[in-house]
């Protein structure tokens, strides 16, 4: 019988402790340094060769640094184990939501001194820079990419349903009407929603922002949960109506990030909300047909607080790194992630490499620096762009006009997690009591916020 899981957890947590706790401060800034860096797993041969070429170039410029690539990809569950077990590479990436917590708990290295010496240190867009900064404003983690939430839609299903794929919905009423039309005419889910692995809370918060709500209020050190609000109620009521009155959300209500992308790429879903830069993973991991793809800005309620939730990726350095490794790590971050955003030669080389391995180049992103730098960098790589930009116009034409709101700061993932069952209840239980669900969730969230 199954005695293994409990033993597994016990053994795993125990073995993880065995290798933690060393706080090595021996500085060797001048000696040779070995630096392990993150490389995306599952790259094809060409991409690995290109990566190795860039490593060789870096090593040539920095003869005392030996770069060792290590396959790494952030996923919530494996990251926890790797962080605890001390098996992360020296340089690794995390989402914006993890930045503040990692810094507060000192689970990553303080590289603020080295970062402030970088030529573009002051050029970061303020919204983006915040994610990598400690309370005192020092930048411990470098933002390397940013995104704003968007409405992805299937142009082919739009056509089949008699809708104009060049005119995606711009209000939530239109989203609802279009979803119903798609469901009625094609039998597919008109609109689908992420609900598991903390993504239910992530998207619910996104919709709450779009309706003008916020999930927490910060006043100095005190955080107040704001889940039980008219905005959140409207969001859940909309989902409930689409699910139970219109029957336009299909039959699957337990989607995680990979699952919903897969279902969307295979034409099962008319519309869903996720990061604006999703195109890459839809194509390279889920075999999306580019002709099906459309993306629009997320509809915002006519409310001056309404905004698009934004996030991004931070490059960070292992807490175990000594001064020599830290210095080498920041050099690598500058070389590998940042220069292509600010330097023409690096940008062209990167685009050329990526395009050669048939990966998408030119999918919309939000600028890490100011918009002028971003526009300039788009010009550099123009000839390598291989994504259907015309089909992305409903997003790219308006993405900069939308107010961008950062994710909640306190206990972000934990609050997302407790919102998962809330949205699941509304979608799977016809008699779900929205007021009661929100009241309970609010109380639970407040408990979490008070604990910190």
């Amino acid at each position, binding site marked *: *019988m*199954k*005695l293994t899981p409990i033993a597994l957890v016990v053994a795993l947590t125990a073995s993880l*402790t065995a290798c933690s706790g060393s706080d090595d401060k021996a500085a060797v800034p001048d000696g040779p340094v070995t630096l392990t860096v993150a490389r995306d797993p599952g790259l094809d041969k060409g991409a690995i060769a290109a990566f190795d070429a860039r490593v060789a170039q870096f090593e040539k410029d920095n003869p005392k640094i030996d770069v060792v690539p290590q396959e790494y990809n952030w996923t919530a*569950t494996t990251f926890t184990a790797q962080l605890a077990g001390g098996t992360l590479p020296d340089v690794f990436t995390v989402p914006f939501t993890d930045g503040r917590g990692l810094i507060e708990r*000192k689970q990553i290295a303080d590289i603020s001194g080295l970062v402030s010496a970088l030529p573009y240190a002051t050029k970061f867009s303020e919204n983006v820079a915040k994610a990598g900064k400690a309370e005192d404003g020092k930048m411990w983690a470098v933002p390397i990419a940013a995104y704003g939430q968007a409405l992805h839609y299937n142009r082919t299903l739009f056509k089949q349903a008699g809708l104009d794929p060049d005119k995606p919905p711009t209000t939530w009423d239109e989203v609802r009407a279009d979803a119903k039309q798609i469901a009625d005419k094609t039998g597919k889910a008109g609109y689908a929603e992420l609900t*598991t692995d903390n993504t239910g809370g992530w998207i619910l918060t996104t919709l709450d922002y779009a309706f003008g709500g916020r999930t927490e209020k910060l006043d100095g050190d005190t955080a107040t949960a704001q889940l039980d609000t008219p905005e959140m109620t409207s969001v859940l009521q909309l989902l409930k109506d689409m699910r139970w009155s219109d029957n336009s959300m299909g039959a699957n209500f337990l989607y*995680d990030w990979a699952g919903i992308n897969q279902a969307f790429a295979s034409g099962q879903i008319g519309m869903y909300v996720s990061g604006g830069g999703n195109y890459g993973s839809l194509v390279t991991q889920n075999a999306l047909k580019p002709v099906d793809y459309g993306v629009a800005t997320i509809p915002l309620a006519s409310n001056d607080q309404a905004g698009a939730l934004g996030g991004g990726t931070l490059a960070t350095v292992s807490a175990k790194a000594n001064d020599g490794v830290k210095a080498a790590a920041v050099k690598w971050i500058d070389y590998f992630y940042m220069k292509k955003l600010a330097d023409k030669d690096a940008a062209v080389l990167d685009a050329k490499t990526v395009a050669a391995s048939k990966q998408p180049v030119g999918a919309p992103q939000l600028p890490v620096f100011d918009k002028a730098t971003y526009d300039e960098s788009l010009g550099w790589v123009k000839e390598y762009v291989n994504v259907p930009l015309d089909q992305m116009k409903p997003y790219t034409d308006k993405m900069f006009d939308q107010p961008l709101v950062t994710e909640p700061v306190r206990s972000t993932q934990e609050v997302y997690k407790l919102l998962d069952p809330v949205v699941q*209840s509304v979608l799977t239980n016809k008699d779900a009591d929205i007021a009661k669900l929100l009241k309970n969730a609010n109380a639970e969230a407040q408990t979490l916020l008070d604990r910190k």
Partner: protein
Amino acid sequence: MNRGRGSGLSTLVFLLPLLLVFGVFSWIPILRAVVMSFQETNLVTPATFVGLQNFKDVLADPLLWTAVKNTLYFALLALLFGYPVPLIAAVLMSEVRRFKGLYSALAYLPVVIPPVVAVLLWKFFYDAGPNGVFNTILGAVGIGPVSWLQDSGSAMPALVIEATWAAAGGTVIIYLAALTGVTTDLYEAAEIDRASIWRKIWHVTLPQLRGVLLITFILQIVGTSQVFLEPFLFTGGGPANSTITILLLIYDYAFANSLGGEYGAATALSIMLAVALGILSAVYFRLTRSWSRS
């Protein structure tokens, strides 16, 4: 006497490496876990002792009682479906004379399929749309579509059905082996007394299997109390926490928060579960021992 002592020593020498390995990989982690249950740690910065705080936190978590309730519900359903099914299958299979090996192989096959593959397969069967495999079959006889995993009411029974399918084969083999131990004299005597097949099963087969039945019963309870794989892979504890089990809660404490969560709480709950199951097993064996004596 001398020979006995000598062989004892050499036995110990041969046993030593095994005991060492067993101690290091089996018992040190458990002891570490006991220590960790009294600590607060993110496994990166040094741990601090917090006394019984982890246990208090876990017991105060409203989700714990949902998880306990769900686990008991799973165990109950698994006893209703999962306990009799292999027994019936084994008794029937022991009665047939032809193709006995084929039937055993077929019954055992699900056990050989990797659990993750089985879950992916069943996820496909359980598709809640009218075009899902099960719903198409049910639709042909005018039932459904059933929501399967997408409804708080049907999600847990759906998990139990898959779990029963996946695990029954192993138990069937145990019963089949036990059935070969039943002396044929007893059946012959029953036949002379003109006993029906049901009376034979009731008065001969089942009493002879009692020892095995008692063991599989407690194993079933211990196993189902630790159900993790099915809810983790099928539903992630949803919809609306209707399939969150104790083990899944332990996992969530430790790993759901990407910043390294509450390892202390996770180990505290693990230890409480282990102790509860230990007590249950001890009480059960004491009870059954007194029954078999009387």
